[in-house]
């Protein structure tokens, strides 16, 4: 037997046996004994056998279908069909089991059900067998179709798209170019809208991929031109009831987004003006006879016809949008939140009308008109929409702030005249003038003038940065004190600000892995809620009402007693409450709203996440690897120690050495000259100079013969350095390069040079260790130097002598040990390692953001931003988890309550308006919780900056006297 069939057969047998077990278990519960149970089984063995066999066949087919799909790329529709088949099959099983229970239900007091299943034994059996057969048929068809599709494909094709033939083309050796359409969408209110649009657009022929982001209000559609047009895509979205327009850049996008949001706020605000006053009157009318209200509220307001007249404009005014949108959605095969609202409002309104005009119909009679349910339900939903429109605008505040930095006007010199032109018309190499208090229009290099520029909005640097000739300036930053002229180097979409905006937009439009789960839940939610509402209705209609209904029944938080309500009214009320209370809005908003706030917060500090997945990955890091040179250290040697021979002095020693090296082009010589100048020493030219390759220099300066070099130079010239060799060895042990100085043939001392640590490196590493991260350092340097640097930083794990091409494999090695690794590097040399890491952080990119690799770009050259990155990511993910927790808890608690789980104890039914109120509260909880992220302040902002650590920044140390 083929191995590929063994698993389906095993699962099929397991399914049959499980079902027989289930049958026996259920029947045994209600029967007197096991012998009685077996008697029942023997009596109806043919039925049990048919059902169990059918179920087994279905299980086997389903398993086989999954195998086929998994091996060949998968077809979503076929999986859905198979799942549907299994669902119908399972329904048939339950139906058949219930039929059997007809004989035992009276034993446990369920006589109503017993009567039902005995009376309708034949339809129940037929229904069970029919659905079983249907399920088998569906799956056989799916398997046949997929097998045929695979046979016609010459080689394993990529995921076969349901949209049509285009994806088959790669299989026969051709590629079709895709295009991407970026859209701005308004009118979305929750995750089900995302799911609706993704479903409807995704089903269009020629659409390869569609990603909709709720909080950003954007959609990115990849499509095959020629098969589908942008106009068709936009029309499909508009048919669903949303506004779709192609995304613009910069200020135009800002204006359009603001206009669209304002329109939505105005529209819902206007409907609130209708819904709330009328809803309030309906509520007063409903409660007219209660408490002290009879003294203030005229009796006529409680008249059912008046209530009908007041409620109707609400349902067909503000409420009409839900009916229209749900109809449009259903036409395209999409069930969204509008449908829940429409069914909820429609059902409450319908019951009210029936109880008004046909009071004896069995819906609770004239005393239970529910007008206030329809009215307040509409009012609460409109309020929710209004609040969402307001808060969604606030969520994208970071981008708006960045966009508002773009100046509209630039002052340039053209034809020797100073003119003002729109900032987006500045060209590369234009000469631009900036006065105090003005924003710099584009990126460039200062030609003349001097000023201090506030770059805090882009880089997070708190202090203004001095700018003089030769310095780079960034467009969008604020010129503070002086005036200067600069040459434009990057304009339009190339400027740092435009790149930052794009990066933040892309990050906010992307989806984190955790969001995909939430979207999946929210997207399928509406469908399953309707299935649940139907199941709840059928249960309470056929079984629950007869068994559990009590005349004490009341609607929660309303004056109604439901003593007179009939079976239909009761089951319908509970079914409607389930529909209304099951709002996936909070689930859908939980992740994107927190991601938007988190990435925006990070951007304020000059930290640019390239996607929401980077935020999630950064929050889960366990190890962090720093590239040494240029990341932890400055990447250029500097004088660290000056040790004069007994009787000598530091300044004299350094002055002589600098003078000898002033004409040198060797990096160590340059470091000594720079060190002398930094200490305010005048460095004059030597009278003579000779470089000795591999040894050092021989010079004559200030009338003295100077030798500066290594031991070999000293040995060649017979200079005895024994007195200072011990000190030299100590410094070399710290990874420093030591140069001996001899003056007039006698040892004068030594100078140590080393790559020095960047400011804040020690503080950043210390904090990361405190966060529980394993910190490692990666370098191509020799182990002794690397370990010396690591000791200063407090890093235990040193990966030394690693060739540039092997850096990625070192990252991989740590990942193999189970770590989630971040790599911090300069973004260009370390590109493979940054790409290999779970999170690659490119540090110190400055304005050249587009060139950077890695998942996170740190604009400033400040290691403390690595700490802030992890803090922001953790805070964001904490918020995401809190939001998801509240959203899921809300649904997990409220849905069973609405379905009547507690009814048998409390005799309370959730009213539709109560359900609407709870639904609004859940969305509000998530939104408010997210806004708390705005108060997040990184630890390093709360602490004063430490003074430079001795080993890292001290210009001279060791034997300095």
């Amino acid at each position: 037997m083929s191995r590929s069939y063994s698993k389906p057969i095993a699962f099929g047998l397991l399914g049959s046996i499980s079902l027989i077990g289930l049958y026996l278990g259920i029947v045994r519960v209600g029967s007197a004994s096991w012998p009685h149970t077996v008697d029942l089984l023997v009596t109806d063995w043919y039925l049990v056998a048919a059902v169990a066999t059918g179920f087994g066949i279905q299980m086997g087919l389903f398993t086989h279908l999954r195998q086929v799909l998994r091996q060949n790329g998968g077809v979503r529709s076929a999986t859905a069909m198979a799942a549907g088949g299994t669902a119908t099959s399972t329904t048939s099983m339950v139906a058949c089991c219930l039929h059997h229970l007809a004989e035992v239900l009276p034993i446990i007091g369920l006589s109503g059900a017993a009567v039902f299943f005995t009376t309708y034994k034949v339809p129940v059996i037929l229904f069970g067998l029919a659905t079983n057969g249907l399920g088998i048929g569906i799956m056989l068809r799916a398997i046949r179709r997929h097998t045929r599709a695979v046979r016609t494909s010459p080689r394993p094709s990529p995921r076969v798209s349901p949209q049509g033939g285009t994806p088959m083309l790669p299989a026969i050796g051709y590629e079709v170019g895709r295009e991407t359409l970026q859209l701005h969408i308004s009118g979305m209110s929750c995750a089900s809208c995302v799911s609706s649009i993704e479903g409807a657009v995704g089903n269009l022929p020629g659409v390869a991929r569609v990603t909709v982001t709720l909080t950003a209000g954007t959609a990115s559609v990849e499509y095959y031109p020629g098969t589908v047009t942008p106009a068709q895509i936009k029309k499909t979205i508009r048919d669903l009831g949303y506004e779709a327009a192609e995304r613009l850049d910069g200020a135009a996008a800002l204006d359009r987004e603001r206009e669209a949001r304002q329109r939505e706020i105005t529209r819902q605000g206007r409907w609130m003006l209708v819904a709330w006053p009328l809803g309030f009157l309906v509520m007063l009318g409903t409660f007219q006879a209660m408490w002290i209200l009879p003294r203030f509220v005229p009796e006529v307001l409680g008249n059912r016809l008046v209530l009908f007249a007041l409620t109707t404009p609400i349902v067909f005014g503000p409420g009409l949008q839900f009916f229209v949108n749900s109809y449009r959605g259903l036409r395209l095969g999409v069930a969204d939140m509008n449908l829940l609202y429409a069914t909820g409002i429609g059902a409450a309104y319908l019951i009210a009308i029936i109880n008004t005009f046909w009071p004896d119909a069995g819906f609770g009679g004239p005393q239970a008109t529910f007008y206030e349910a329809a009215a307040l339900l509409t009012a609460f939903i409109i309020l929710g929409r209004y609040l969402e429109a307001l808060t969604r605008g606030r969520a994208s505040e970071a981008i708006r702030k960045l966009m508002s930095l773009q100046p509209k006007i630039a002052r340039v010199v053209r034809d020797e005249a100073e003119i003002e032109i729109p900032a987006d018309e500045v060209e590369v190499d234009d000469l631009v003038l900036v006065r105090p208090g003005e924003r710099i229009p584009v990126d460039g290099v200062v030609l003349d003038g001097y000023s201090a520029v506030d770059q805090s909005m882009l880089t997070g640097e708190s202090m203004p940065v001095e700018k003089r000739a030769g310095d780079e300036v960034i467009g969008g930053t604020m010129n503070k004190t002086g005036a200067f002229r600069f040459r434009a180097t990057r304009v339009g979409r190339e400027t740092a600000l435009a790149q930052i905006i794009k990066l933040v937009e892309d990050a906010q439009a992307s989806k984190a892995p955790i969001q995909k789960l939430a979207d999946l839940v929210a997207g399928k939610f509406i469908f399953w809620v309707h299935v649940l509402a139907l199941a709840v209705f059928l249960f309470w209609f056929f079984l629950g009402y007869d068994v559990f209904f009590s005349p004490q029944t009341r609607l929660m938080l309303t004056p109604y007693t439901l003593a007179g309500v009939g079976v239909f009214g009761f089951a319908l009320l509970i079914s409607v409450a389930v529909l209304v209370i099951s709002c996936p809005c909070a689930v859908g908003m939980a992740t994107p709203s927190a991601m938007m706030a988190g990435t925006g917060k990070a951007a304020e500090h000059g930290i640019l996440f390239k996607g929401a997945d980077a935020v999630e990955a950064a929050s889960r890091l366990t190890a962090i690897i720093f590239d040494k040179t240029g990341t932890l250290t400055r990447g250029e040697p500097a004088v660290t120690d000056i040790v004069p021979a007994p009787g000598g002095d530091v300044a004299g020693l350094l002055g002589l050495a600098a003078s000898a090296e002033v004409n040198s082009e060797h990096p160590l010589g340059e470091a000594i000259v720079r060190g002398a100048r930094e200490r305010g020493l005048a460095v004059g030219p030597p009278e003579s100079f000779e470089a000795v390759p591999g040894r050092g220099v021989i010079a004559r300066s200030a009338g003295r013969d100077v030798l500066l070099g290594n031991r070999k130079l000293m040995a060649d010239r017979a200079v005895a350095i024994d007195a200072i060799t011990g000190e030299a060895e100590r410094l070399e042990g710290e990874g420093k390069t030591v140069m001996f100085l001899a003056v007039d043939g006698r040892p004068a001392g030594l100078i140590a040079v080393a790559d020095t640590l960047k400011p804040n490196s020690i503080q950043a590493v210390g904090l990361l260790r405190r966060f529980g991260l394993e910190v490692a350092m990666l370098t191509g340097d020799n182990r002794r130097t690397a370990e010396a640097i690591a000791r200063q930083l407090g890093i235990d794990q040193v990966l030394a002598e690693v060739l540039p091409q092997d850096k990625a494999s070192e990252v991989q090695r740590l990942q193999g040990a189970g770590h989630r690794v971040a790599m911090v590097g300069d973004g260009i040399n370390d590109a493979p390692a940054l790409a290999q890491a779970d999170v690659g952080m490119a540090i110190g990119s400055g304005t050249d953001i587009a060139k950077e690799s890695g998942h996170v770009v740190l604009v400033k050259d400040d290691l403390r931003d690595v700490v802030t990155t992890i803090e922001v990511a953790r805070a964001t993910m904490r918020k995401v988890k809190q939001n998801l927790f509240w959203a899921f808890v809300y649904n997990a608690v409220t849905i069973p309550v609405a379905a009547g789980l507690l009814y048998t104890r409390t005799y309370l039914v959730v009213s539709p308006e109560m359900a609407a109120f709870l639904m609004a509260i859940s969305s509000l909880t998530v939104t408010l919780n997210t806004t708390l992220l705005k108060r997040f302040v990184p630890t390093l902002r709360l602490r004063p900056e430490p003074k430079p650590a001795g080993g890292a920044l001290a210009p001279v140390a060791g034997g300095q006297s």
Partner: protein
Amino acid sequence: MNAGLIGTILALAAAVIFAAAASGSTPVARYGGAAWVFILMWIILMPMLAPWLRRRRMREP
């Protein structure tokens, strides 16, 4: 045949089965319940049928 029609037929079938099963109830409960079952079934079926039919149509030569 379009999704709306198929959905309507299937939902009607479900409503008829409901009405048959609820023959012991009052006419309001029986037919009102059948109407509610029809609405919910139609809502449940449409999102399944519309994409399914569209894909099926796309595959036909």
